[in-house]
């Protein structure tokens, strides 16, 4: 089947999509956006987190046909051209990236948190990131990055 949707502001018409296919597969294998990562395929790890109509979801659990006519924003769509989003910058600066596999999902999820909550407490950060698994960092640097990103974003206002 054909699926028409918008991804990172660009209209896409994707052909030959299998009806049982996930949005994640379409993004990675058919649209050339490999930023969202494929790890668990069951919503446990959060590595495939993208915005669907402005709401963070696990793209591995969205059937491709469900995004017909809808808007998707992936980690590739957060930067403004060459200029990284403050969340991305903060992850780099805080050393929150090790192997990098969980990073895109964490960045989208953290981006959403800071958008909804300018000054998240540590508990709120942990709660927001509870569905994103990282096996390298032990999470401390990730928490640092989110705190840093929140402070910076608030300062920009």
């Amino acid at each position, binding site marked *: 089947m054909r699926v028409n949707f918008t991804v990172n502001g660009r209209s896409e018409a994707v052909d030959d999509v299998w009806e*049982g296919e996930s949005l994640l597969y379409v993004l990675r294998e058919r649209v050339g956006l490999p930023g969202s990562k494929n790890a668990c395929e069951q919503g446990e790890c959060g590595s495939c*987190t993208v915005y669907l109509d402005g709401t963070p979801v696990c793209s591995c659990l969205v059937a491709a046909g469900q995004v017909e006519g809808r808007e998707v924003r992936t980690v590739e769509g957060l930067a403004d051209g060459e200029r990284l989003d403050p969340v991305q910058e903060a992850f780099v600066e805080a050393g929150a990236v090790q192997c990098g596999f969980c990073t895109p999902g964490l960045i989208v999820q953290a981006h959403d948190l800071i958008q909804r909550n300018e000054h998240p407490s540590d508990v709120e950060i942990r709660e927001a990131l509870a569905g994103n698994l990282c096996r390298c960092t032990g999470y401390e640097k990730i928490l640092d990055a989110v705190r840093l990103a929140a402070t910076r974003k608030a300062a920009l206002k």
Partner: protein
Amino acid sequence: MDFLRPTTWEEALAAKADQPEAVPIQGGTDVMVEINFDVRRPVALLDLNQVRELHDVELVDGVQRVGAGVPYVRVIEELGGALPGLAQASRTVGSPQIRNRASVGGNLGAASPAGDSHPPLLAGDAVIEVESRDRGVRLIPAADFYLGVKRSALEPDELIRAFRMKPAEGPQYFSKVGTRNAMVIAVCSFAVALHPSERRVGTGIGSAAPTPRRALEAEAFMAAELDWDARLDPAVLKRFGELCAQAASPIDDVRGTADYRRHALAVMARRTLTWAWNDYRKARAA
């Protein structure tokens, strides 16, 4: 595989009537896992995302009617006051990303004994509203809805439209055992709801029997023994825990042993009832 995309409830019912083997998909948090892992190859997926009626939350004649597609994040944000037990259970579902997509309707459709919404639906006397094109609406009490492991009273040509539940008239609590606070399928779970005007205590047990179920003997015991004007009698509380544990028929599996589940249920039953009772006494004193 067919991919059906109805845009109205009527279209959805027609599609299900014409193709009863089509598998409804809302948030996809159960259905897509099965497809991704090749556990299931449905002949058709029936996408309900565009059926707006399924996202309605309304109060009809004093009863909360919640569309089957309302995601947990909205149950938490909008129904914490009216349906506190269910809202608490909703907070323990998966992760934020999962709660943005998953719904009570999906939990009912999957009918897993471990589904987090079932115990509070049972304790709060929820009624499940299902509908087919040819036979119209059926209202099924939650207690009659679960028939077996992942089996429900839903007929092949029916879809779940909503659940109905009276706004809480007393305190409600939910408790769940798992290895961490997020992303956990219940080892076992328990919900309690006080119904002061009927002098009744509602219960719901999760993940400790082939289906979610009420602890009927425990409820009958409380109806007979609980003094609604006094402090909670420790002997009554202890017996309540024992009867709740006895109502379960758990198994040994990777998540826990049957013995552990029985033990944990007794603890959760005593704890949640104590919390609820303290709230009830405080509200009456105020």
